[in-house]
């Protein structure tokens, strides 16, 4: 065995060489092999042999390959087409099912392709992108575990690193865009305004329509706005030199437009509408040298040749150089200071773990959507395969005759593939039309704003055609290979039964069932969970509570409050640091050696009645008791629980200090209520009416039957008190459900994809049963003649699916439970996966299958046995 040259190499030699040369060369190589075998041993001899074979790729030895079928190829192709169309029109329903499922499959996978491409194209349009980095910092606990990653950097960081590190050549800071009132003429609106350094337009490529990118921020009172904003306020883009006012604190400040930028591309992490020079930031002078807090993002340009890890290590110096007091303080507590990293611009978008101001996205979504798209596509292709195998019974003769007149196997494969690709190409056409109709829904679900026409770039079109071809190849693979492998004689004699159901078809059908079950369970459980969190009693009343962002002066608040109190429709009024769904003030309190992390709410009087929160013990804040506004707090039950059973209402919190509240006494304990979205459990919370900082939101409870009147009344009052500030509001219960938008979205995505999958799978099932009935038409006829009832016929057909559905259940249910458990872990309050849901799913599948089988039984029953038995 081992002293023979490798067989495949021998075959390769045969394939390479022409007939005249072959024998001599084979002989020479064999002789040399034997020589070398004795001299060097088996391995080297074999290697030499292989080398010699490959060495025969020389003009003298290579067989001249004649293009054998050149003369009638095109006629043949024409014949394939003709036969294909005949087959299609003979089995219209099957063709229709194939086309519909492939259309849906191709449309879904194309949409998801667009989504993924867009996700990964973020920030790719800056020519300078490879040199731009964003500063991030990582805090670790003494054990080395990462606590927090952030991209909010101290304001002096940017200029300092450019001065201290020659590798860093340029920087720009960007402040989180915030809503400010912008006034042009008499029009006042809230708009997103950001601040950036003058290098902003040099580093990033946001082309300016008007203005010079090197000059736009020379003047501290200049501003750049986008084309869209220019058109909104001036109806033209040529607005350089026009005046725009922005309101800081309580007065408007004028800015001169120095540039108009093109709208930021949709796939840009950095976005802006109005952008002002950094130096004009009201608090800039105060914070210019303040290292104590991260306030802006800092982007820098790093030299191409820089060794990045080395530079990051060198950045360590910043701590000892500029923040030695912080380092010392941390050291005292046994903690280490955070480290600085430079994050390439291209990685900004798909890194959701860094808290920052850009809207990031998780690449997880791409994977999940990609997976779903692939499932749908797979099911569509599976349909094609199942049906093609099913209907191939009738084509045995065709294959036999083709073989008889000289078709090689590859011709047959080509023919069957061509048929599949023909259908998939047609489906592609339909799919492109389908995309047009579903694009709005897809945009809504995926948070994108794709435009139909601009989707089909050259590259995308090529990819779509590629997808269709791959789909065709995939779908046509099994039929092409099996059908073409038939022996001529047996194909002609119809000895081999290809039709009906074989193991391969069965596994395909099973996997279709499995995917359907998986997605139905997913839909049901996610739907239950979303309903659960939306309907759950939060411990407070969010109905009829109106949240108004507080833009009023202190004295105006009083006036507004008095005005509201005068209205019979308004039940109560309160103030709060932030409404529940918005920001939170966090703190931590060390009590008897245990850290209690808590949320702190600064509230106005009547806060608890407004939200209808129950008191367990103690009393509400009383504006008449002066100590309440300084040294009294109310805690929730969770906070009290953490303090332990020894703590009583009226006791002081020793050592407590935050926001001007010092060692307060607890005057009441309130019932727990959900402070955050239901993904989080209830945390300890304290409430104070100490008025050291302003209140961001006003809460107004109105009576339920007079919503519109109350709103109008409030608007009128607001406009008399503060005419220059637009009145805006939202309903608290809407804010609360707003928190679950993404959960609802995912539920919808899974729901839609399960509907799609099930419909495709059902279509396939329908076709398959039809073909089975056709294949067994004689059997059915005989059974009927012998007295079988239609019920018996039904079970005869249905029986085969029992086992398949059971196998699919065994595969899909554990998988579904596993995946859904992973999702449910995200919620502190969650439903459990109900066995009833699982059973209901299986029941649904059974029912649908029975329905489809039933329809076919009716058809089988209604055919006259005489007709089916007579045909030969």
């Amino acid at each position: 065995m081992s002293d023979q040259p490798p067989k495949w190499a021998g075959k390769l030699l045969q394939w390479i060489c022409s007939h005249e040369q072959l024998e001599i060369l084979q002989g020479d190589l064999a002789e040399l092999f034997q020589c070398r075998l004795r001299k060097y041993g088996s391995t080297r001899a074999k290697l030499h042999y292989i080398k010699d074979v490959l060495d025969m790729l020389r003009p003298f030895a290579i067989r001249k390959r004649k293009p054998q079928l050149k003369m009638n190829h095109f006629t043949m192709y024409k014949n394939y087409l003709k036969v294909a169309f005949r087959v299609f029109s003979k089995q219209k329903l099957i063709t229709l099912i194939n086309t519909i499922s492939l259309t849906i499959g191709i449309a879904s996978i194309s949409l998801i392709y667009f989504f993924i491409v867009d996700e990964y194209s973020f920030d790719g349009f800056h020519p300078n992108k490879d040199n731009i980095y964003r500063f991030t910092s990582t805090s670790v606990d003494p054990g080395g575990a990462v606590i927090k990653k952030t991209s909010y950097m101290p304001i002096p960081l940017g200029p300092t690193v450019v001065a201290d590190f020659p590798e860093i050549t340029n920087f720009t800071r960007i402040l989180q865009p915030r809503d400010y009132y912008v006034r042009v003429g008499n029009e006042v609106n809230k708009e997103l305004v950001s601040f950036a350094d003058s290098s902003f337009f040099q580093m990033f490529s946001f082309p300016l329509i008007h203005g010079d990118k090197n000059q736009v921020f020379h003047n501290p009172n200049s501003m750049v706005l986008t084309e869209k904003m220019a058109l909104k306020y001036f109806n033209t883009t040529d607005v350089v030199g026009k005046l725009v006012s922005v309101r800081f604190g309580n007065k408007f400040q004028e800015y001169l437009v120095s540039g108009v930028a093109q709208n930021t591309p949709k796939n840009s992490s950095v976005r802006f509408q109005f952008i002002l020079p950094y130096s004009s930031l009201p608090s800039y002078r105060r914070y210019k040298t303040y290292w104590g807090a991260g306030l802006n993002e800092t982007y820098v340009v790093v030299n191409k040749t820089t060794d990045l890890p080395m530079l990051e290590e060198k950045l360590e110096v910043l701590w000892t150089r500029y923040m030695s007091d912080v380092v010392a303080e941390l050291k005292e507590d046994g903690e280490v200071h955070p480290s600085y990293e430079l994050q390439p611009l291209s990685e900004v978008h798909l890194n959701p773990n860094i808290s920052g101001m850009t809207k990031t996205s998780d690449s997880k979504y791409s994977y999940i959507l990609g997976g779903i798209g692939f499932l749908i596509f797979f099911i569509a292709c599976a349909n094609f395969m199942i049906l093609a195998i099913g209907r191939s019974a009738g084509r045995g003769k065709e294959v036999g005759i083709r073989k008889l007149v000289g078709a090689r196997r590859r011709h047959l494969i080509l023919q069957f593939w061509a048929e599949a690709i023909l259908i998939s190409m047609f489906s592609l056409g339909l799919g492109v039309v389908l995309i047009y109709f579903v694009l709005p829904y897809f945009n809504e679900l995926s948070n994108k704003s794709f435009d139909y026409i601009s989707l089909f770039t050259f590259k995308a079109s090529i990819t779509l055609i590629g997808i269709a071809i791959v789909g065709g190849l995939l779908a046509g693979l099994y039929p092409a290979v099996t059908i073409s492998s038939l022996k001529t004689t047996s194909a002609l004699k119809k000895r081999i039964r290809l039709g009906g159901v074989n193991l391969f078809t069965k596994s395909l059908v099973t996997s279709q069932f499995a995917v359907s079950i998986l997605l139905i369970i997913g839909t049901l459980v996610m739907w239950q969970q979303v309903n659960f969190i939306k309907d759950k009693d939060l411990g407070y009343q969010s109905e009829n509570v109106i949240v108004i962002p507080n833009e009023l002066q202190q004295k105006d608040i009083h006036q507004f409050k008095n005005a509201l109190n005068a209205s019979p429709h308004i039940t109560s009024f309160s103030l709060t640091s932030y409404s529940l769904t918005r920001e939170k003030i966090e703190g931590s309190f060390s009590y008897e050696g245990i850290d209690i992390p808590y949320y702190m709410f600064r509230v106005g009087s009547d806060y608890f009645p407004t939200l209808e929160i129950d008191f367990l013990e103690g009393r509400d804040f009383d504006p008449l008791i002066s100590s309440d506004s300084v040294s009294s707090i109310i805690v929730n039950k969770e906070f009290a629980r953490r303090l332990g059973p020894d703590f009583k209402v009226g006791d002081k919190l020793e050592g407590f200090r935050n926001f001007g509240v010092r060692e307060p006494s607890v005057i009441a304990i309130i019932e727990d209520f959900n402070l955050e979205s239901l993904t989080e459990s209830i945390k300890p919370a304290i409430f104070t009416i100490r008025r050291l900082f302003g209140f961001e939101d006003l809460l107004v409870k109105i009576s339920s039957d007079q919503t519109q009147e109350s709103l109008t009344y409030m608007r009128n009052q607001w406009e008399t008190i503060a005419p220059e500030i637009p009145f805006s509001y939202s309903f608290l219960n809407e804010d609360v459900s707003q928190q679950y938008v993404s959960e609802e979205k995912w539920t919808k995505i899974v729901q839609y994809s399960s509907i799609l999958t099930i419909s495709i799978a059902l279509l396939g099932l329908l076709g398959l049963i039809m073909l089975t009935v056709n294949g067994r038409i004689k059997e059915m006829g005989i059974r009927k003649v012998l007295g079988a009832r239609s019920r018996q016929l039904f079970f005869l057909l249905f029986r085969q699916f029992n086992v398949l559905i059971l196998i699919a259940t065994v595969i899909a249910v554990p998988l579904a439970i596993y995946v859904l458990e992973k999702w449910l872990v995200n919620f502190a309050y969650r439903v459990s996966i109900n066995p009833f849901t699982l059973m209901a799913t299986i029941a649904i599948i059974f029912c649908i299958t029975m329905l489809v089988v039933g329809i076919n039984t009716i058809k089988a029953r209604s055919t006259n046995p005489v007709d089916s038995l007579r045909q030969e």
Partner: protein
Amino acid sequence: MKGTQLGEFEELVLLTIGALQEDAYGVAIKLEIESRAKRKPSIGALHSALSRLSDKGFIHSHEGGATKIRGGRKKRFYTISASGKRALVTANELRNELFNLIPDLKLNASQP
């Protein structure tokens, strides 16, 4: 028709065929060149050269002599044709003529 120039390797092969006389077939030529010229032509390169020589009409060939070691396959034996001999002679004469035109070649030949 290809030119009738004789390449360096072709000349070597042709000479070897002449030297081997009746026994000149692929493997034998290869082994002879390996032992005399201290170079290892691959069997592919050798057959390539043989096929060129054959095209130029410098060699004749006939088949025969299957052995067990070759798996029962025939050998192809080569002999030099008349025009092959002429080409060898011409090449040799040309070389000698030029050789003699170099005055102090003999002196330096022994020193590398």
